[in-house]
């Protein structure tokens, strides 16, 4: 698989002949962003349609505990982070379907429980805080070759999943009962979508960190809503905003010496502001 990455890097050298894209660690970071940003934005479109931003935030924060568990058990924190994220997503979805409580309340309960567990583990383990920095703020510039391949595989998997389910997921977001009557397998889709979101969120944490990961999913889709009238433009504008803010964020962080993840999110937020202005000016 390494030759594949080498090929992609040399191709990038030709497509992006800029100073910031020369060092190998920058090439890795750019490629990682090109994998992560579209996957996150694509999942973000139905996520916003479902009003599930809080859910993705809860999964993001569960990563904090996932990492702590990994360090505690002596397993690679990335593995426990993804596994724990999937577990929390599954648990929230199951509990949500079986209680009268509102989804927000269920997520809130899980959110705080999971964080409390993480804090308890970390406080008992001296010297663990150092490890957490990279996860809290993201560490795009230190992405390894294996991680890059994982991110590439994730983009392909998310693309395939959404290709097969997108229409039915959107129908489900309009009205559950109506979707059911149209033959949509409601439960299977709810659970699988929650797991895909968890997979994307935990992978994207590597890029922008626990604190900002929800932005990568929600902001492009939200910005696209300001300018799009139909489903086609809403989707592709979100992808474009994610890629543009990802690349310009990396470039700017290189020259300004700021944290990469935060800079990317600031660019996405700026594009959100711009589309919001556009909406105000060209009010339909």
């Amino acid at each position, binding site marked *: 698989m390494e030759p594949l990455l080498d090929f992609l890097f040399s191709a990038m050298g030709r497509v992006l002949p800029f100073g910031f894209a020369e060092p190998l660690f920058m090439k890795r970071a750019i490629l990682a962003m090109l994998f992560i940003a579209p996957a996150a934005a694509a999942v973000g479109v139905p996520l916003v349609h479902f009003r599930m931003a809080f859910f993705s935030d809860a999964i993001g924060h569960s990563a904090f505990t996932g990492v702590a568990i990994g360090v505690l058990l002596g397993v690679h924190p990335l593995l426990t982070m993804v596994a724990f994220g999937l577990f929390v997503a599954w648990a929230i979805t199951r509990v949500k379907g079986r209680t009268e409580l509102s989804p927000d309340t269920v997520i809130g309960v899980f959110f705080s429980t999971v964080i409390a567990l993480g804090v308890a583990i970390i406080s008992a383990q001296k010297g663990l805080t150092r490890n957490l920095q990279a996860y809290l703020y993201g560490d795009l510039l230190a992405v390894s070759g294996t991680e890059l391949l994982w991110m590439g595989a994730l983009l392909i998997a998310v693309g395939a999943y*959404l*290709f097969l389910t997108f229409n039915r997921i959107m129908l489900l977001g*309009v*009205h559950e009962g109506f979707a059911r009557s149209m033959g949509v397998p409601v439960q299977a889709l709810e659970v699988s979508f929650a797991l895909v979101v968890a997979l994307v969120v935990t992978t994207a944490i590597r890029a922008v960190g626990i604190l900002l990961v929800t932005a990568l999913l929600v902001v492009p889709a939200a910005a696209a809503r300001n300018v799009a009238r*139909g*489903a*086609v433009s809403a989707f*592709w504008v979100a992808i474009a905003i994610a890629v543009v803010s990802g690349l310009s964020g990396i470039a700017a962080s290189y020259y300004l010496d700021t944290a990469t993840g935060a800079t990317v999110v600031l660019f996405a937020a700026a594009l959100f502001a711009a589309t919001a202005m556009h909406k105000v000016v060209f009010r339909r």
Partner: protein
Amino acid sequence: MMVTAHHHTLEIRDLSVRAGGVEILSGIHADIRCGEVTALVGPNGAGKTTLLLAILGLVRYTGEIRFCRAAEHGEGAPRIGYVPQRLDFDRNAPMTVLDFLALSSQRYPVVFGHSARSKRSARETLARVGVDHLISRPLGKLSGGELQRILLALALRDDPDILLLDEPVSGADLSGEGLFCEFLGQIHSESRFSLLLVSHDLSVVGRHADRVICLNRRIICQGATTEMLTPENLEAMYGSGAHLVSHGPADGRGHLHPPAAGGGEDRRD
């Protein structure tokens, strides 16, 4: 009442639904027969929508819902069409009417555009209910009546065995009666699906339903429409003081006025 042979029946046997320790429906026993219009009436909170959701398999229940179909009319699970009271989606969602219709008529994601087939099918579906001018409108900008027409057309597109129609809430522009008279009545006489209609409007029920099920967490009574809408049954369902008021020409049908309503005559909730 119709006297034709019923080639399918939905049999509900001893159905109960509990949620949060409260019995929402108990001991429901009813048949919904092919080709008939069955009206489900009862006060707010009577469990009418819950019964529809149970038939759709969206709430947990005890008891049995059986679909019996005469062998010569095919096999397998019934197609159940459903027109909800209102959609609970985000009104700002970037989704046109065409996008919405394409969601269920084409396999590949609508973000890659609409197939010629799904565009044609969307136009036909909308034309059937007389709203083809809405095709490129954002879904969230439609009125409740327009939305319900589109949902009805979609539900009928797949030729259902059973159609569940939850009553329109805000009948300001197109009332349930309008929807029913103009379109549904005609379609219903052509195709032989069973229609289960939730309604508050007893004039609609009186005019169109073959059978009535009066519900208030349990079945108060059921039977042929003419026999069911008696003052005694209405009182059992809505409490004392409920009465029918007839409008316009005295045809014996009327709107129900619950005792606490106290508003104008056209009030519906």
